């Protein structure tokens, strides 16, 4: 039976709604298949309500030509599992959403129903601050055995997932392509590590290329699979804020990592906090709150939040704050964690050492880069990395 369901899900031009309607009429996937082979008129009628005649013919042809056994076995051989909505393994969190996918494809495992899950999202173009935060939070979540779910995108997504693996935990990537396609290519090594440390999930059949139109649906799955959504760095109007809205509509708890008010990359997060989301000031704080929420799941919403607030003592210095307080030697003291031009750094130095020469500052900055104490992000711009 699975083979027929897979066949149905793989039909071109057929989305969730159409599949629903077909199943309503024909009762099961196998019957749809048989109708297709017979070029059944009822089938054509239903399809033509949603597609033009040209596409209807194409669909029926593709459907009839498909190799039911071969295609399915090929997929299984690749290590991909097919989990339709009637399968006992289909995630309950996903089933709870009205617009859930008919089926999902998995390479590796699915997040356990009895394990807390946090989805971490943020800017693809994150700053050094975002990079460190994503890694720190991902890593601590991994250590605390909380599943980290994300889209494996460049930037915050990928970094938090890699952090989770480094921390010894499990992470699950939801893709906008088939599970057999690695996108983006930069995260190839992450893509290969995830199936052994969690799993790769997709609502799209194997072989589907990553296209822009797939990502909103993928984002809704990322939102659906979590218990708490953590936003690390986001601009005011961004893809990230769309995912937040989806999560809100699913009644998920939202936490945001604040940033500098002068930083456009933190606008999204700061605005969420202002609108009443949770604040994640350190990985340890955040994880305690997640654990409390998890322990009290099932109880009424406000009760949880109020109790959580009572129990949290704020401003406990987490690892991030500690790193920032470390004493800085020499020129590094004049360099910010945001990129600064060499001239700006030299100006700051001139305040303390009025006789300093520019070429000397340039030499020292260079030397610190060689030693790894500073990073040169582009010609003439340096920043001080935050230590882990």
């Amino acid at each position, binding site marked *: 039976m699975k083979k027929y369901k897979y066949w149905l899900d793989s039909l071109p031009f057929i989305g969730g709604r159409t599949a629903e309607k077909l199943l309503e009429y024909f009762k099961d996937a196998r019957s749809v298949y048989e109708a297709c082979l017979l070029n059944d008129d009822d089938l054509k009628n239903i399809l033509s309500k949603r597609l033009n005649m040209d596409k209807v013919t194409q669909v029926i042809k593709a459907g009839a030509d498909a190799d039911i056994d071969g295609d399915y076995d090929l997929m299984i051989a690749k290590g991909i599992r097919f989990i339709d909505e009637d399968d006992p393994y289909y995630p309950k969190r996903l089933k709870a959403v009205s617009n859930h996918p008919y089926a999902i494809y998995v390479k590796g495992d699915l997040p356990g129903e009895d394990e807390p899950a946090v989805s971490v999202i943020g800017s693809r173009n994150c700053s050094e601050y975002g990079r460190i935060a994503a890694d720190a939070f991902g890593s601590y979540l991994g250590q605390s055995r909380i599943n980290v779910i994300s889209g494996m995108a460049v930037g915050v997504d990928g970094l938090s997932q890699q952090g989770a693996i480094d921390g010894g935990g499990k992470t699950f990537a939801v893709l906008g392509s088939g599970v057999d396609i690695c996108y983006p290519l930069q995260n190839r090594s992450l893509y290969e590590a995830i199936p052994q440390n969690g799993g790769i999930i997709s609502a799209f059949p194997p072989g589907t290329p990553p296209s822009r139109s797939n990502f909103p649906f993928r984002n809704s799955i990322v939102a659906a699979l979590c218990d708490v959504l953590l936003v690390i760095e986001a601009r005011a109007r961004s893809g990230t804020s769309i995912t937040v809205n989806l999560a809100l509509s699913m009644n998920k708890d939202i936490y945001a990592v604040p940033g500098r008010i002068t930083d456009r*990359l933190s606008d999204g997060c700061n605005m969420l906090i202002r609108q009443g989301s949770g604040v994640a000031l350190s990985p340890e704080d955040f994880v305690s709150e997640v654990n409390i929420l998890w322990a009290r799941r099932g109880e009424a919403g406000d009760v949880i939040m109020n109790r959580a607030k009572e129990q949290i003592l704020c401003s406990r210095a987490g690892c991030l704050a500690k790193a920032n307080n470390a004493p800085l030697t020499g020129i590094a003291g004049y360099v910010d964690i945001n990129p600064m031009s060499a001239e700006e750094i030299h100006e700051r130095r001139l305040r303390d050492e009025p006789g300093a020469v520019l070429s000397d500052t*340039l030499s020292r900055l260079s030397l610190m880069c060689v030693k790894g104490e500073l990073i040169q992000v582009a*010609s003439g711009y340096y920043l001080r990395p935050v230590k882990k």
Partner: protein
Amino acid sequence: MYSSIKSGTVYGLKSFLIDVEIDISNGLPCFVMVGSLNSEVRESAERVRVALKNMGMNIPPSHITVNLSPADIRKTGTGFDMAIALGLLEIMNIIPQSSLRDTLVIGEIGLNGEVKRVSGVMPIVYEAKKNGYTTCLIPIENAMEASLVEGIRIIGVSDLKMVKELLNGNMDVLAEASEENSNDPLNKAVDITRREEKIPDFSDVSGQESVIRGALIAASGNHHMLMIGPPGTGKTMIAKRIPGILPELSDDEKLEVTRIYSIAGKLNIEHPMIKNRPFVDPHHSATVSALSGGGGIPRPGALSLAHKGVLFLDELPEFDRNVIDMLREPLEEKCINISRASGNFVYPADIMLVAAMNPCPCGYYPDHNKCNCSPGAVRRYMGHISGPVLERIDICVAVRKIRVKDLENKNKGISSSKLREKVLRARKIQEERYKGLNITCNSELGVVDLRKFCALGKAESKLAEDICENLDLSARSYHRMLKVARTIADLDESEDIKERHLTEALCYRPQVAGL
């Protein structure tokens, strides 16, 4: 009846003396021109015929043949007109036989008999002198240019009538017509060029200390330079001032550059001698031919016009990829090979490349408050410049946004003359060091000489090792960095390359953003 007049032409950047042979025979009236001619040369027949008629000297109705020899060199340009006209006049006995012996004749003829200027006169006159000719008869507008060649008599004329009188021994005309043939054309050049356009001064630039430092190092060792920064920050302004801190052209170099400009037809009539280092800034829509040299017989392109000077490429990523890629050869070899059906040409291109670009499509990277470009977009933008070309750029500096307080600052910046002093001192050190070798600047060092002249001490070697390992430099990048370190040490008047010279050189290596 036959006569032969000596003329000349330019082929690529080489000049050749051409025999203009004229023959008048019996037969149906016609005017045939042979000898591998371009269309404008063939048209000489019409111009000459009408000009002579208008001067009252009609061409006999016979079979006239004109041959430009050697017949296998492609002839271009309109400079043969006068030679053809005079050849005819000689056959017609209007001017004395052999009055043009040992004389080179060049010039275009207008329909009214006027003699008009042509390009490439200077190298042709030079060739004539080399071959023992004593006199040159050239258009008066080219006289100043031709007089730059010493040791040959230059006579500038303005119309054919004048030439006829002259050659018939009318002394008065001779006095009017001839130009002073100064014994020292270069001194004349000094007089002339005082009126030449002044190179702007670095003191006009406010702030941008690190860019000026970069320019100083680039000028001292003749390293290629790239400026990266948002629009409107002074990149073009600084580039225009760089020729002013380079050492002055030597006398030989002045003639070399003037030759090229003469062939390109770009000499100023009254002030022909090029004294300043050239500054050429082609628009980014320029094609490969516009830069390397184009046409059936290639005219000098921007690269050759910038020979011994600065080639400034603004908005580097906007240039066609082929154009940027083509720069590889001249940046390394200092010349450019051009292949055409008519032959292979090697043109000089000893330039200092100065380029400018934005760091990303919007221009504000790495300021993430202003820059919304994805890392992919930034990388792709930088990727327009091929790796091999980027590696040959030794000095890469960031140009910052100007703040109002910098502009308002009443103190002027450092002057060009002070900077030039430093450059000259550093160049002198290099001259001494490379005496007897075929190179003049640090940037020209080959790998073998590099080891000799840029040897590092123990601590410095260790640092160099660390640099290569931690920053993953290629061998070429490392060698180029050493050359820059050598220049910085020269500016510092230090014989050895010290740690601080190495580290400063390192900060100028171009980096691909995002990595």
